């Protein structure tokens, strides 16, 4: 399923999107399949599947640890695409990875592999709009969305450039910093939501871990909420993982649905 289609469907129901991140191969490829199914059962609308890179500078310690577990267990791009192809889910899947893995595989081959395995979008946290021309062209040709991040520090001129290039959804970085669950949401978030003027859906990530926060974000005007570290924390515990992933997804989705206008 394509990402715009999913957002249209949600909009009809007047509902925000829950976008869940986990790292593929953490702790095993088989585990990831099971976890994806659990997240979908809990109500996730889009799943971001991290393709692990050895030097993840944009990620916080929680996700970095997940990436290390996945690499230690032998996850590679080849295994990744094979695993994704075997997933039986009917929601959009997005690959999140660092540019060197795409560069090394060859941009075209990477995008074609995404398309062939059923991936709808690509997020590359270390690829700013300035460097993204070639990848954006290939994504357009293959009907894949290239998703960009904007931050509270993003200047107006950069914002324009990003909004012109980004498709699928715009990934709003809720606060200065990197991924990691935090207990409160910065006031700068709603300001940022107002600043991002576009018809492309806006999803807010970085630091969201419970239903109350998810509701706040949706009430502030976001079309979706991105949650990563809180799920990866559950995976790290190794304790009753599928059930707890499903429960957290359900709590978040409930918050999103119940968010006051």
């Amino acid at each position, binding site marked *: 399923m394509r990402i715009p289609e999913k957002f249209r469907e949600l909009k009809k129901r007047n509902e925000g999107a829950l976008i869940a991140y986990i790292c593929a191969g953490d702790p095993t490829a088989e585990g990831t399949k099971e976890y994806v199914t659990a997240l979908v059962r809990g109500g996730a609308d889009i799943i971001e599947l991290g393709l692990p*890179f*050895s*030097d*993840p*500078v*944009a990620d*916080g*310690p929680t996700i*970095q*640890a997940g990436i*290390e577990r996945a*690499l230690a267990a032998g996850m*590679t*791009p*080849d295994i990744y695409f094979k695993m994704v192809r075997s997933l039986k889910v009917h929601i959009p899947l997005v690959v999140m990875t*660092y*540019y*060197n*893995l*795409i*560069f*090394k*595989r060859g941009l075209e081959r990477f995008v074609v592999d995404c398309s062939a395995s059923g991936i709808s979008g690509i997020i590359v*946290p*270390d*690829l*700013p709009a*300035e*460097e993204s021309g070639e990848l954006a062209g290939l994504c357009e040709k293959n009907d894949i969305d290239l998703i*960009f*991040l*904007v*931050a*509270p*520090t*993003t*200047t107006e001129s*950069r914002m324009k450039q*990003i909004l012109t290039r980004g498709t699928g959804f715009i990934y709003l*970085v809720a606060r*200065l*910093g*990197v991924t990691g669950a935090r207990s409160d949401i910065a006031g700068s978030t709603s300001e940022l939501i107002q600043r991002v003027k576009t018809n492309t859906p806006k999803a807010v990530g970085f630091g969201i871990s419970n239903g109350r926060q998810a509701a706040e974000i949706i009430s502030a005007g976001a079309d979706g909420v991105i949650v990563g570290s809180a799920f990866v924390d559950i995976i790290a515990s190794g304790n009753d993982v599928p059930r707890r992933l499903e429960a957290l997804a359900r709590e978040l989705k409930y918050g999103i649905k119940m968010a006051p206008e």
Partner: protein
Amino acid sequence: MKQEQRSTKFGKYGGQFVPEVLMPVLEELTEEYEKYKDDPVFNEELDYYLRDFAGRPSPLYYAKQLSREYGVKIYLKREDLVHGGAHKLNNTLGQALLTRYMGKKRIIAETGAGQHGTACAMAGAAFGITTEVYMGAKDTVRQRMNVYRMELMGTKVIPVKSGSQTLKDAINEAMRNWVANVETTHYLIGSVVGPHPYPTMVRDFQSVIGKEVRKQIMEKEGRFPDSIVACTGGGSNAMGIFHPFIDDDVDLFAVEAGGSGMKTTDKEALHSATLCAGEDGVLHGARTKVLQNKYGQILESSSIAAGLDYAGVGPELAYLADIGRIKPRYSLDAEALEAFHDLCRLEGIIPALESSHAVAYVKKAAGSGELGDVVVINISGRGDKDLETVLGMNK
């Protein structure tokens, strides 16, 4: 706009491959650096500190005994005599001063063995700027004395306990902290690596080395050397001595760490010779040559010299190697160790193991005529820090 974009690169290398949150601060840093780099007041102040605090100019010394032994006329650029015992201070003084001119209150840096961290600590203390250095928790144990040195100078050393608890994790943690504190903090990168403007800025601050050599060699020889040889990890001492000679008829040799041999596995390289054996990739904010496996995962590199032990290299060096302007070479651990002993014994100079790689290559290549008649070797640092390693290797 287009032109601005081009100037972030060296050919196809360089650029700014960083998270969006950092793009504005890199733009700001680029603007501020452009503003001050030719500013007379800034440069006068920097010159003052380079002279009276760092002890520049460093001598260019004719190494008579070593010349006789190796069979080529050798001059040593004595960066080992710079305050702190290495060229690192040239850059940290420049960036710390820039930090003050930019109105920022705090410097952060990462360090592996502690050399760059120590140079940051010295510059931070000299300018009265709060300095915090991220260091892998394992490295803080291995390099206890360097941690203490930094702390003596008022720097806070933060042990990083995530991941492998080494340099790579210290870089990640420093980046994270910068992202969260961009308004008040300057990230002081220690080599000609990272996103634009760092490779250019660090090269410029280190170019004082090559500028001095130009004058000194004319006084001593009445001409330029036939070749200049410098060890290369990230490449700051190499770019510093090469850059002022880039348009001259002087051969430039970048000597990398061959470690225990030029072999790699899926996870690690036995060497750190990125220019010699790396492939195109994107690491730490720049497109450059990197040591990586077939999927693009970065390899663990290896060298007897901690300062050369890096899986990437400055993007400008990758470019200069591609166009044939510099010649990438390597020396093995054992060769560097032998050259280390030669220089100690013959000249009474204890070089850093990093610099010993450059000396070792001269020993190897002098007979071939490749280096010409007059060679300048950049002795980028002194070797007191390496004595334990050398003792261990000799056993």
